[in-house]
């Protein structure tokens, strides 16, 4: 039982919630860039929270199903069709053997999540199916999806046709504010440099991938060129010699020697990953306590919006 890839699109990757506990071998996390959209994909499909889905970058994925089951697409606004008929995103749809599932290209946002009831059955590597292409690990042989790939999944009949009402769906925008917890190397950035960082507009550059997003804007000077290499957390904002910030994401290197001005909140890093080159970013400093409260609120409200059931 499986689905077969007809067209892989720009960059389609199998992802579960990510790899944990292997940083000491130099393995990064992988996992979905937009955790909220990934979470809703599995929640709508009534899957376990860690189920394997496809992260579609930009769009253009085409699959054919060899099984009767259910699918759901969340995230960026990529048109979804089944056998040429447009279907709503953020909603569970039945598919049958022989159906063709197609996603167009995103109008706003960059990444969408296509899930299947029960998740794709992929052999985990270091405890996770998350594909990290740079490391050749996870997914199918550590590579992005290719035409002809078979993605095993089960035949499933009993699933509610859940959907997330449009008013509750995230609105992807072209300008966002990223909240930042000031970091360990704060003292290496003079007051004026910190002010410039938190008051300027930065643009998303062309050099953005799952490892990190390079931004362009007023350069930030640092008193030191490098530091003794140390562990890098998710969302860390490095300032390399050219002064242009890099926000490090899921596939980041585990250790690095550039000074860091702070770390972006994970919630905001998810939103950042939905921005295309040219979009704008502002940074706002927050305390650890504020960050913790924002996370608690997201856990209780943003991720727990009520799902409705469609009765065909």
């Amino acid at each position, binding site marked *: 039982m499986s689905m077969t890839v007809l067209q892989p699109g720009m960059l389609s990757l199998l992802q579960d919630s990510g790899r944990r506990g292997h940083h*000491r071998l130099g393995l990064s996390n992988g996992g979905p860039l937009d955790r909220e959209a990934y979470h809703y994909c599995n929640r709508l499909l009534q899957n376990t929270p860690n189920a394997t889905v496809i992260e579609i970058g930009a769009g253009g994925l085409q699959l054919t199903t060899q099984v009767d089951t259910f699918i759901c697409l969340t995230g960026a606004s990529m048109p979804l069709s089944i056998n040429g008929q447009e279907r709503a995103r953020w909603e569970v749809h039945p598919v049958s053997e022989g159906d063709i599932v197609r996603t167009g290209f995103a109008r706003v946002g960059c990444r969408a999540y296509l899930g299947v009831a029960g998740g794709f059955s992929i052999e985990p590597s270091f405890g996770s199916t998350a594909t990290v292409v740079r490391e050749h690990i996870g997914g199918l042989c550590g590579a992005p999806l290719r035409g002809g790939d078979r993605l095993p999944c089960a035949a499933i009949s009993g699933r509610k046709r859940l959907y997330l009402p449009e008013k509750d769906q995230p609105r992807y925008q072209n300008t966002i504010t990223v909240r930042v917890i000031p970091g360990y190397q704060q003292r290496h950035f003079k007051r004026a440099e910190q002010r410039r960082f938190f008051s300027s507009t930065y643009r998303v550059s062309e050099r953005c991938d799952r490892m990190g997003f390079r931004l362009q804007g007023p350069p930030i000077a640092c008193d030191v060129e490098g530091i003794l*290499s140390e562990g890098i957390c998710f969302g860390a904002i490095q300032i390399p010699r050219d002064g242009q910030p890099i926000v490090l994401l899921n596939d980041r290197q585990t250790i690095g020697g550039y000074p860091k001005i702070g770390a972006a909140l994970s919630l905001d890093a998810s939103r950042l990953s939905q921005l295309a080159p040219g979009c704008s970013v502002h940074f706002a400093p927050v305390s650890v306590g504020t960050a913790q409260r924002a996370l608690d609120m997201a856990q209780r409200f943003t991720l727990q919006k009520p799902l409705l059931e469609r009765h065909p």
Partner: protein
Amino acid sequence: MLYLGDTANAQTLSLVQAAAVAIEQALGEDLVDLVPSYASLLILYDPRLCNRLTIIRRLRSCLTTLQAQPITAGRTTVLPVYYAAESGVDLEALAERAGLSTEQVIDLHSSTEYRVYAIGFAPGFAYLGEVDERIATPRLSSPRAEVPRGSVAIADRQTAVYPCVSPGGWNLIGRCPVAMFTADVEPSMPVAVGDTVRFEPVSRRRFLQLGGDLS
């Protein structure tokens, strides 16, 4: 982030290792991941499941007894290296810059015992120190797009073996035929942080016999 010093040295490394063991025991399941490096430990927990202040309190109490922790002695691993211009494209330029012959460079690189200070950057990439001052060389001004798998390289007073093809700005002086990272084998790496590593010069023929690749 926990800092245990501000320079790379064997004593700080031992302290980092002892702290890693203590923190693993103290936090147990609440520890998501740990990234030891030269003089620091990045400690990752899940703020959705654990209270930050409680974690800090538990860390403080386990670290006060840190000195008493026994320091584990690492193993010694010998890695064969084929040092040559064809396997390490920067060997000759590095020797010239240092005012030494390539033989002297090979001699200095292979007669030093190195410690594994950290693993990171890429799976299986072990940062080894310290390289003899006479052959310490800064990184290339612009990194190469593709460094061959197995490349043995120097950057400042650090040396390493590239576990797989990747971009890199270190100076390449030879190649090692031993796989530094194998995903489906336990253990995945021939070395661990704290271990001692020596390099042993081998001939081209021996390098190829050991499975080395010159492409």
